């Protein structure tokens, strides 16, 4: 398992970097909209109504974007947590932690793909 992870490390790093990039560029405005502005009633009426939201999301471009917004930050989190765990828990645990995190990320990515296709 360790050898496999080592072999695909560059790929994981690409997913991590892409996740961080997408997460940094898009998520603050996203969270601001859904988590703060919408509950406080700042978002214009109807903008987030079901029909409009569904139409945006079901559009192929929308699907792709949603997939990116879910799966990539998950890989970002998985890889970052792995280093976080080495920092706080030491290197010896990495043999167990890394496969767990990456397997989790993989599962969640599959779930995300299924969910997005199901739109």
């Amino acid at each position, binding site marked *: 398992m360790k050898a496999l992870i*080592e072999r695909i*490390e*560059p790929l994981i790093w690409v997913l991590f970097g892409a996740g961080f990039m997408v997460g940094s560029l898009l998520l603050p405005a996203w969270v601001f909209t859904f988590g703060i502005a919408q509950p406080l009633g700042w978002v214009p009426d109807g903008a987030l109504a079901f029909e409009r939201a569904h139409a945006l999301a079901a559009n192929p471009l929308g699907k792709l974007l949603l997939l990116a917004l879910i799966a990539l930050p998950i890989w970002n989190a998985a890889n970052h947590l792995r*280093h976080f765990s*080495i*920092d706080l828990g*030491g*290197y010896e645990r990495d043999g167990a932690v890394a496969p767990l995190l990456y397997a989790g990320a993989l599962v969640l990515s599959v779930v995300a793909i299924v969910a997005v296709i199901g739109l």
Partner: protein
Amino acid sequence: MSEVTKKTVVVTRFDPDQDEVPKTQSYEIPVQSDWKVLDALNYIKDEVDPTLSHRWSCRMAVCGSCGMMVNGEPKLTCKDALSNYGNTIEVEPLANFPVVRDLVVELDGFMERFKKVKPWIIRAKELAVEEGATRQSPQELADFKQWSMCINCMLCYSACPVVGNDPHFLGPAAIALGHRYNMDSRDEGSAERNEVMLEEGGVFACSYANECSEVCPKDVDPAAAVQQGKALSLLDWAKGLVLPRGSE
């Protein structure tokens, strides 16, 4: 001479012949206002306690011998002014290194990592002297010059959490040096070097704490080299997926 005051220097002592683990020893000494931390250590060595061991030579921040932890931060002691600190200064051997004696740390682990990245010009065909000097534009020089400024003082290794946790990690200075040669227009060895960068403990072991660059006394910015190394070795990795090793 400049003004003289008293300061207490708390120094880590360790003599493997006598001590199970390192201990500390305090020296109250007169210091001049223009002294560096190294001057205080040399005063102790010369006038108070000749059994103190520490490495130093050029005292002008270029030989890289005198890196130590000063109040918990890795510092080049010949460059670090005593006036930066209060009346008590704590000097310890570099963190993340095994300690040989007092303030002297084990360097051979670094020397092995240093050699691993093949820090020399690799060319398919070596140039003959008669061919004269290679042309290299000022811009091509600027592409790698920054990475060639490392004095191997090891401060970055002492600051890096990955170095302390992961025994395989090549570490900031070694990777930056490999990157220096990869970026040199005269070199053709990046594929060879990137194999090392892609191994366990290579560039991807780095978690980008950026501490190496924070403490570097020569503004080498090793963290940038490591990240750039990730991107560039990635290309070689991808190439390796398409073309099996040894083809080309």
